[in-house]
């Protein structure tokens, strides 16, 4: 499927937690989007030129809609948060490889999300047919997307301030609830992904983790968003995979994080 830059129309947008926005875009890209892929949004303000990579939270192929849930982190995302129904935004997609659903099909899986890494896990939890244990970590009681995740599996929550679920992070929630799995899928901040990689190695199970990095092009040309890899990859011929194109999802053992 070909990558395209095109104009999407805003179907709706709402703030769902402090600094977190839920944006639904009407776009033909929905027809081919897969779980764990991302798209880039271009700010209109020409002082901010680079496209902003944002993970796909939900795909509605029938209504040709992509749902993005993102955190306002700077000028570009602040501009997006002001988009209103009927307005347009330039987007680039679909980008990246996505989560390998077949690896977890029919098995006991952990679907783990931390903070703004939670949104892509919603579509994954909908699409995956497996024994799903969904473990999500938040800062506080602002537990966005929790109710929707609960429709797709058993949800375990950890909060940094202990206000909901286990106090601490997603690893604390696993221990406290005595959970185990055969396959892990995860997206979240780097310390969380490092802990998951260590846990998966200890248990001898595969972990498919979605990484993020500053990127300029989103299509594999600029070589900005690389991650060190265990093996020399066929594109770079050095130990550097491109997160935008070879990822963002990697088996944890393949990457040096």
């Amino acid at each position, binding site marked *: 499927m070909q990558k395209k830059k095109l104009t999407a129309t805003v179907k709706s947008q709402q703030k769902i937690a402090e600094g977190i926005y839920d944006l639904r875009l009407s776009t033909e890209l929905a027809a081919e989007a897969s779980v764990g892929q991302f798209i880039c949004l271009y700010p209109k303000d020409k002082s901010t030129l680079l496209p902003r990579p944002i993970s796909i939270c939900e795909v509605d192929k029938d209504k040709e809609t992509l749902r993005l849930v993102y955190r306002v982190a700077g000028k570009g995302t602040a501009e997006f948060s002001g988009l209103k129904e009927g307005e347009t935004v330039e987007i*680039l997609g679909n980008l990246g490889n996505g989560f390998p659903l077949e690896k977890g099909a029919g098995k006991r899986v952990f679907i783990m999300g931390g903070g703004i890494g939670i949104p892509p896990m919603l579509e994954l939890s909908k699409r995956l047919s497996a024994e799903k244990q969904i473990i999500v970590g938040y800062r506080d009681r602002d537990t966005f997307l929790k109710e929707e995740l609960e429709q797709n599996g058993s949800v375990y929550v950890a909060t940094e301030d202990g206000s909901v679920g286990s106090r601490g992070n997603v690893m604390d929630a696993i221990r406290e609830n005595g959970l185990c799995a055969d396959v892990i899928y995860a997206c979240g901040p780097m310390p969380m992904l490092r802990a998951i990689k260590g846990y998966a190695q200890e248990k001898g199970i595969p972990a498919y983790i979605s990484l993020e990095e*500053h990127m300029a092009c989103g299509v594999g040309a*600029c070589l900005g968003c690389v991650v060190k890899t265990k093996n020399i990859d066929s594109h770079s011929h*050095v130990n550097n995979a491109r997160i935008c194109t070879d990822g963002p999802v990697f088996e944890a053992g393949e990457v040096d994080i």
Partner: protein
Amino acid sequence: MNTKVTIAGVTLQNPVMTASGTFGSGMEYGEFVDLNKLGAVVTKGVANVPWAGNPTPRVAEVYGGMLNAIGLQNPGIDVFIERDIPFLKQYQTKIIVNVCGKTVADYIEVVEKLGDTGVDMLEINVSCPNVKEGAIAFGQKTDALFDITSQIKKHAVQPVIMKLSPNVTDISEMARAAEAAGADAISLINTLTGMKIDIHKRTFALANKTGGMSGPAIKPIAVRMVYQAASAVKIPVIGMGGICNAEDAIEFLLAGASAVSVGAANFFNPYATEEIVRGIEAYMEQYKIEDVKELIGAVQS
């Protein structure tokens, strides 16, 4: 209407090329633009052996542009010859290979290996600000630039374009040094060395601390330098630095560039190169210009 330009005996169907490092070897952007429509594809810099490049973060946005410190990551010339050149040869576009190295011998090794590959021109990177050895070390002093240019010319089969750095005191004397050493053309500007600090984390935005600045914010500096360089030498000048649309490209032609390269704009708009080709044609039609060469250096005081 004639859009052809000739640089060192190589005729380009139009004056629009890609800037090295922003377009890979064309594969990634081939999904967005018809490579057959471009004057030339200038590849990402290639060295004699694979280079891993710098740690991340490698890119950061700045007002009206960006900083990069990729560090010339590349797969090495052997893989490049086997994979990238055959890919580009499928298209009706000229192939210009950007060459980098840590020592003069590294550059010569690459230049020699490219001798019988059928690529059209070589662009020698003596201006990357993001690597500690080689590259810019050859591009900031006239004697070093003269020396590497003349040595490369002894070994090069194809015409040699020396890519100059804007991080110098006097661009005219650098241009003259390259010309005196036998360069067939010069291209400029490479990126300007910049820095960004994240005030919330109190860290450098780039792992390399400094990076090369590109994007529309640098365009006036680039136009000025292209004008100065073109006024100083007789060899063709390839202009670049912040070109985002046809108007920008035409400004460089008027300043004295025989061709232009589109760089960071590819990231902001993957269709930029083809749109610029069409935009130049529209401009020529609007002003009844028969031959694009009429625009080269045509600015009046």
